[in-house]
């Protein structure tokens, strides 16, 4: 995955459109010209456009067939556990009629050809991998198949229409002739690329929709899978960086003498983010960093605290103007006239990503080339940042994507890339920068904390007449310069809150931006992670006040024909909603749409007299359109539940004296095996095009948990994690 790929990686012309071309060994490389959509995250896409003559159309190249009959699919999204290394090749193989049991994969290099059609740049995020690839990869497979068939027909002097591609070979039934793809590869490369291809009807799928084992499971079970930390290079050094413990602080001066005396320490270098100790391995780097004396300029935020931030949010809720995220009817008037009103305040904390693999990156600058081995979700930005830091043009930067030991959004940032390249430049040798767990926790870019005020008016019919939600919190897009400085609305701050699926005649959802020095970034399911909780938990409070069953109320308020119904009903029926439970147990339900998919979850919990909460079982119903690989869909639902549950039970990042207080898994506590409920996944097949699966399982679990706890105790859970609501995870 790493050095062996440095010369084996395919390279695609940046200009013009890719034509089918012969490989050195007599193979076929197929590409199609396909448009790149604009859309979400346009802010970051802008950076891609500079000098790109391919902004409107990008060539794509995913298939390599060699004379030895090996079909290799180039995987242009990052494998971070979500299964793209299996799901994307399935799309190709389906149309290509490749033999699935023999398929090989390779991670793509950084190249505009691999721009994500949804994000507009080569990156993995927003649960877009399969959604974006759904057409292009099937088209690529179909085009390659047609060229192989044309090559066979030409060889045999028969009509292409009389030939059939099956199991990685072309067959001519009439004459009984067959040729493998390997045998046909060279001739197929001479065929013109079809301008248009016919894709299979759904009913003809052989592979798509079937549960297939993960292609990466064997390497991940025997220890041979190469993650970022596992990159090995001749003469590789290890760096640890001393960074200011106070947010926004800088190096004033440092004394390297003690550190330099540590055996194995090679060099101390000041870089943008701090002082790097470059050594022969992790341990000397760590000892060197411990011996390093740095005097910090703490800057302006040395007094920042979580209590202060919470207070600021409340003040902002009172005073500042709010940007309208969604408005219908006249919520103020309807609330003013209401006889029955429900009001509540909800708060959620900053959260760390806590990827299992600590942040790291490896770089080598040599012979005018900058090579970067990165567990990255963002090849485009990695290439750009490496070019900036190395001073080389982007064309002289190679990015090799390793397996990612978790991503969850964190690895679309490039802070670790900049550090690795800076260290390699300073050392004149290949360097792997390794963040300790403490570095990874304290120098993360966090999920925003927010403070929310909600009011609802209950109508005479028991429905909801008015709904008002005021969100106060920092903005990911504003703090990262993705929206203009004077823009007061960040769509990612209000997603999951702005468009509620329920019929309410008067709604107003507003947002007050309250930025803080705490760095922010995308966190699995982004705004849905907090807004899904707040909206769905508050809805249960309204249901309770109205004397309604929370499931029945949801059904009643969701318009007919809406896809929310399918998952809501399925989750409820599978969980036995309304059926008696053993004493001390209760259920909670929630439904959240995100990233193109509808997901409902029912949690069954118990709360002890000592207020210990245990989640016994979770039923997940997911409508992600066509489930390309139901096995991976199930995995991602289990994973999404675990990730969201982990946060709800025990995760919080807090600040004191300008410092992030948590460092390791002893004080940033994540889900352990005894806390893992039985998760049962039910796929609702709506037959639509694929939706996302990496994130949609996360948002409904916190509210399903909160609603079950409320059902058990009669008290709403308005603050997360549980400890802030006076509860403890068992």
């Amino acid at each position, binding site marked *: 995955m790493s050095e062996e790929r440095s010369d084996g990686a395919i390279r695609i012309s940046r200009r013009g459109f890719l034509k089918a071309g012969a490989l050195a060994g007599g193979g076929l490389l197929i590409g199609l010209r396909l448009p790149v959509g604009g859309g979400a995250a346009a802010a970051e896409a802008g950076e891609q456009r500079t000098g790109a003559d391919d902004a409107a159309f990008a060539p794509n190249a995913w298939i390599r067939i060699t004379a030895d009959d090996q079909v290799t699919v180039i995987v242009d999204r990052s494998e971070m556990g979500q299964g793209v290394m299996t799901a994307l090749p399935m799309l190709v193989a389906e149309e290509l009629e490749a033999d699935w049991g023999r398929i090989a994969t390779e991670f793509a290099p950084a190249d505009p050809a691999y721009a994500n059609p949804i994000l507009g740049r080569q990156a993995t995020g927003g649960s877009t991998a399969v959604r974006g690839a759904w057409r292009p990869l099937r088209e690529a497979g179909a085009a390659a198949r047609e060229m192989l068939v044309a090559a066979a027909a030409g060889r045999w002097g028969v009509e292409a229409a009389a030939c059939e591609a099956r199991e990685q070979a072309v067959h001519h039934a009439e004459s009984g002739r067959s040729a493998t793809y390997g045998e046909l590869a060279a001739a197929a490369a001479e065929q013109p690329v079809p301008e248009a291809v016919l894709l299979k009807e759904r009913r003809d799928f052989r592979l798509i929709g079937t549960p297939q084992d993960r292609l*990466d499971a064997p390497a991940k*079970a025997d220890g041979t899978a190469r993650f970022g930390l596992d990159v090995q290079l001749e003469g590789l050094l290890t760096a640890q960086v001393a960074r200011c413990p106070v947010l926004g602080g800088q190096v004033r001066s440092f004394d390297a003498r003690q550190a330099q005396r540590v055996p194995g320490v090679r060099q101390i270098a000041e870089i943008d983010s701090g002082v790097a100790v470059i050594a022969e391995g*992790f*341990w000397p780097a760590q000892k060197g960093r411990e011996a390093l004396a740095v005097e910090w300029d703490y800057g302006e935020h040395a007094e920042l605290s979580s209590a202060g931030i919470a207070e600021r949010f409340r003040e902002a809720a009172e005073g500042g103007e709010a940007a309208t995220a969604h408005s219908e009817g006249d919520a103020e008037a309807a609330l003013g006239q209401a006889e029955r009103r429900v009001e509540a305040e909800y708060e959620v904390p900053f959260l760390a990503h806590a*990827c*299992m693999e600590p942040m790291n990156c490896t770089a080598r600058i040599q012979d005018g080339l900058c090579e970067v081995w990165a567990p990255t979700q963002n090849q485009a930005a990695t290439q750009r940042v490496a070019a900036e830091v190395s001073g080389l043009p982007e064309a002289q930067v190679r990015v090799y994507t390793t397996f990612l030991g*978790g991503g969850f959004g964190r690895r679309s940032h490039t802070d670790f890339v900049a550090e690795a390249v800076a260290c390699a430049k300073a050392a004149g040798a290949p360097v792997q920068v390794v963040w300790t767990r403490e570095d990874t926790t304290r120098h993360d870019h966090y999920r925003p904390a927010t403070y929310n005020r909600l009011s609802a008016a209950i109508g005479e019919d028991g429905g909801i007449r008015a709904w008002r939600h005021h969100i106060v919190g920092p903005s990911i897009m504003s703090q990262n310069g993705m929206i203009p400085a004077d823009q007061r609305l960040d769509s990612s701050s209000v997603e999951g809150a702005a468009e509620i699926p329920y019929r309410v005649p008067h709604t107003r959802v507003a947002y007050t931006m309250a930025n803080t020095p705490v760095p922010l970034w995308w966190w699995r399911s982004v705004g849905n992670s907090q807004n899904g909780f707040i909206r769905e938990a508050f809805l249960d409070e309204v249901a309770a006040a109205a004397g309604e069953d929370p499931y029945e109320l949801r059904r009643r308020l969701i318009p007919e024909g809406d896809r929310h119904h399918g998952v809501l009903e399925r989750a409820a029926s599978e969980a036995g909603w309304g059926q008696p439970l053993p004493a001390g147990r209760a259920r909670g339900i929630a439904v959240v749409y995100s990233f193109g998919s509808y997901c409902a979850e029912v949690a069954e919990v118990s709360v002890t007299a000592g207020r210990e909460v245990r989640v016994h079982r979770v039923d997940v119903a997911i409508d992600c359109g066509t489930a390309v690989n139901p096995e991976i869909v199930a995995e991602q639902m*289990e994973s999404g539940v*675990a990730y969201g549950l982990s946060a709800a039970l025990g995760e919080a990042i807090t600040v004191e004296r300008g410092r992030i207080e948590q460092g390791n898994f002893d004080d940033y506590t994540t889900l*352990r095996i005894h806390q893992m409920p039985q998760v049962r996944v039910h796929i609702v097949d709506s037959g639509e095009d694929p939706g996302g699966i990496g994130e949609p399982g996360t948002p409904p679990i916190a509210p399903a948990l909160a609603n079950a706890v409320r059902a058990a105790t009669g008290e709403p859970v308005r603050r997360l994690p549980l400890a802030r609501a006076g509860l403890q995870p068992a």
Partner: protein
Amino acid sequence: MRVALTVNGERREAEVAADTPLLWVLRDHLGLTGTKYGCGISECGACTVHLDGEAVRACSVPAGQADGRAVTTIEGLGDGQGGRHPLQEAWIAENVPQCGFCQPGQIMSAAALLARTPAPDDAAIDAAMGGNLCRCGTYQRIRRAIHRAAAQVQESEA
């Protein structure tokens, strides 16, 4: 110091500071990268190896303490002839790994469990695996895979 270990049946030596954790001896000096670094303080289990047959956290065992002893890592868990350990087979069959980073440690902990308790129930699994974090939330499949491997071992011994 010169630390001498028997790693996966082979004698290996490295010149390291005596306080170097076994984890970094394996990864940085012996090139065995299957054993992972996750926390460095015995909180996550990613670095789990067997030291004289016992599951230990390699991040917290100084080289000096490991000197002269036998270490088994994920690379050496199979039968030595390229065949996988039943747990590795079960892990693949149950599609346990997601990102996969925690899995070598999970499997090494599970192997130590099965060596002690050939047919563990869920409670025994939770107790033995409580020190191994998985941020991808594969715990339910881990339980299933351990049951599967246990059943398979018993069947082949029957």
